[in-house]
């Protein structure tokens, strides 16, 4: 069975292009254009990885991951950030301690680096 990746971003272009990349790698991509929808999907089905944008209207990517960590069934969910935000050291520290993302991808994506790191996460 194909491993499933949920991509969460408010920009449709990003959702489409990242989903295409993920599908081309042999995984199954699903998309959500806001944090609320993402949380609903995560509670209904199992995903091997969630790729989260940070700055989104409504529930931000940080809040989505906070919710994931607080929800018993999802607390071990693998999640990574996919964002234009350049985290400060302070921010990286908070992330590491509280939210525990498995990786952090900077937009715009370097495709070959993205593929290599996604493969490493999903095996």
């Amino acid at each position: 069975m194909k491993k499933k990746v949920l991509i969460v971003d408010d920009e449709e272009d990003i959702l489409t292009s990242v989903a295409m990349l993920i599908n081309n790698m042999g995984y199954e991509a699903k998309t959500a254009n806001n944090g609320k929808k993402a949380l609903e999907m995560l509670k209904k089905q199992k995903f091997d990885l969630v790729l989260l944008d940070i700055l989104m209207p409504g529930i931000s990517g940080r809040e989505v991951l906070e919710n994931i960590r607080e929800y018993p069934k999802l607390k071990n969910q693998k999640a990574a950030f996919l964002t234009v935000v350049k985290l400060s050291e302070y921010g990286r520290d908070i992330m590491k301690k509280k939210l525990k993302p498995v990786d952090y991808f900077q937009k715009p994506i370097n495709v070959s680096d993205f593929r290599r790191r996604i493969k490493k996460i999903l095996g």
Partner: protein
Amino acid sequence: MAEESIIVGKLCNNQNILLVSSSKDHNQVLIDLHKAVSNKFKGILAILTHKSAATLASEFKKNNIDYSNYFFIDFVEEDNKPKRCFTISSLFALTELALKIEKIKKMYKTDLIILDNILSMLIYNNDVTVLRFLHDMMVKVRKKGGKAIYSILKEGNEKLIADISLFADEIVEI
């Protein structure tokens, strides 16, 4: 005043500081901050989103703060503006604000920006727009050198503070 000295100390090692204070203490915290930094920087750019530069200048006079090295950006059209004051058409106009900051930084030697405060920006813009603006500003400060302090009221802004924490260098809560 001791708390404001902490901020000055934090500015040695950090470029972008988020200053969180309660609404009750906010005005005094900012005055004390200006007192603590006014003679420590070559040029200070004060961005005022909730009061005019004239009001701040009169507060400076009342508190014996030398503001000869200050530049101001405000959003209020009035006659008695202090010297070196630039007015932006509206708090909606964040691009205009970003360009004006760039221009002032290019033309004059400003090595500290104090933005007071983030909350007023949220009256005219949604939170993602404000977060993107602050993120871009922090990236520019980091890239081009200098320091910046961004003030925000504590009450009711926990979500926004947590989001800004991801890209600010330090959070100081007073």
